[in-house]
């Protein structure tokens, strides 16, 4: 790959936070590093994988809005977790985590338990647990 062939196809997947480092040949035939904002084939694959997750998150959100599941259920999908992973983050057995997806049981959870979830989901405080609009499309 030559320096001028390094793709610069921006699909905003890096969100302007950084760029990829690519190795390419300059006009003297020497390898140098060039920064790239993206490449179409890669963007497509990443968007596809991302879309699959987003679909799951949207479904989870709907179940929470309909009062079938507690917000924890939504956040689990938002964080690309499953019950196994979430239970290891909050250090609770899986059956308990599953019980907490019940809105009635969720509403009675102690502050101590809620804080575990706040930590696991990377949130600031307990109020954030009730917000479902984070990380949106």
């Amino acid at each position, binding site marked *: 790959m030559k320096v001028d062939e390094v793709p610069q196809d921006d699909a905003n*997947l890096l*969100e302007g936070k950084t760029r990829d480092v690519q190795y390419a040949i300059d006009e003297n035939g020497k*390898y140098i590093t060039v920064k790239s904002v993206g490449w179409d084939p890669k963007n497509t694959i990443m968007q596809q994988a991302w879309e699959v997750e987003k679909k799951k998150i949207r479904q989870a959100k709907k179940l929470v809005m309909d009062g079938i599941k507690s917000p924890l259920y939504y956040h689990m999908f938002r964080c690309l977790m499953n019950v196994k992973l979430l239970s290891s983050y909050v250090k609770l057995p899986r059956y308990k985590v599953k019980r907490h997806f019940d809105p009635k049981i969720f509403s009675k959870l102690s502050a101590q338990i809620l804080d575990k979830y706040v930590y696991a989901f990377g949130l600031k405080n307990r109020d954030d647990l009730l917000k479902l609009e984070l990380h949106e499309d």
Partner: protein
Amino acid sequence: MKIDFEHRMAAHCENGVISNMLRYYGIDLSEALIFGIGSGIYFSYLPFYKLNGMPVTSFRPWPGLIFKRITKALDIKMHIELFKNPEKAMKALDDNLENGIPTGMVVGVFHLTYFPAPYRFHFNAHNIVGIGKENGEYLISDPVMEKIEKLSYNDLKRVRYAMGIAKPKGKMYYMEKIPQTIDLEKAIMKGLKRTILEMVKLPGPIIGVTGIKYLSSRIKKWPKKYGEKKAAQYLGQIVRMLEEIGTGGAGFRFLFSAFLQEASEKLQIPALNDLSMEMTNVGDKWREFAVKAGRICKGRQTSETYNELSEFLQTIADEEKKVYLGIEKAIS
């Protein structure tokens, strides 16, 4: 407090962290040299071992391996420590930073707050270097980021104690003893020889060039064997392994070419420079493969295109093999 640490970006976190840390101690080795000495180019196809229900294709050695090889090849003494207690792990980091020691850490990617969201997934073998603490926030040199990033105490603790597969368990490392002189030629030779061994000499069908050929013979059968949808999914997985950050593929071929170029200079073997150009062509072909495979994943696939793809992969394998054999000849 901030350590005067030069942050340079890298194509791969493991190489980048080692390269940056060594430079701090006066050993200036590029990412490409680190990559080559650690024999970072690799291929294995594991049809029987499934991840997320898909066969595993790997274009890189196991995380941490390059690291181990470098410390051994250059005779560096690295202090590596795991902590049961997260608070103690953070305290140990604080002490190190207090003493002005750049400290490497293995972390999970998902909760890295500064990472772009689409890149955040539960991968637990990312490497970063702590280089200071200001107003309660840690200053982080992450080789895939352009600038020095910041993490709060809790955010850093969370990524150091990420859960899931291969938990980092607060793993932290720093250089204890650096040799006065290093035998670079010897280290480069060792890296080259190991690469030849792994890519063309190892027996068995799944590792190295034979692994690429094996994959090629399997790809042909996918549409019939698994159906169009699953075949496309499998193919997508390969493209993902080819192109995502730090997973290797085409990018690693270019990195390896850059290494060959430097090795040619350091060892005074001009032939390696020519081989570098040949490897560059192979890298370009891998990129072409990603484009073709990506097109098939998008739809409009017939068994015919899978056949074409399989043949193309066969050519790549043959050409890549030629390069390795050329290296073997050049250095013997």
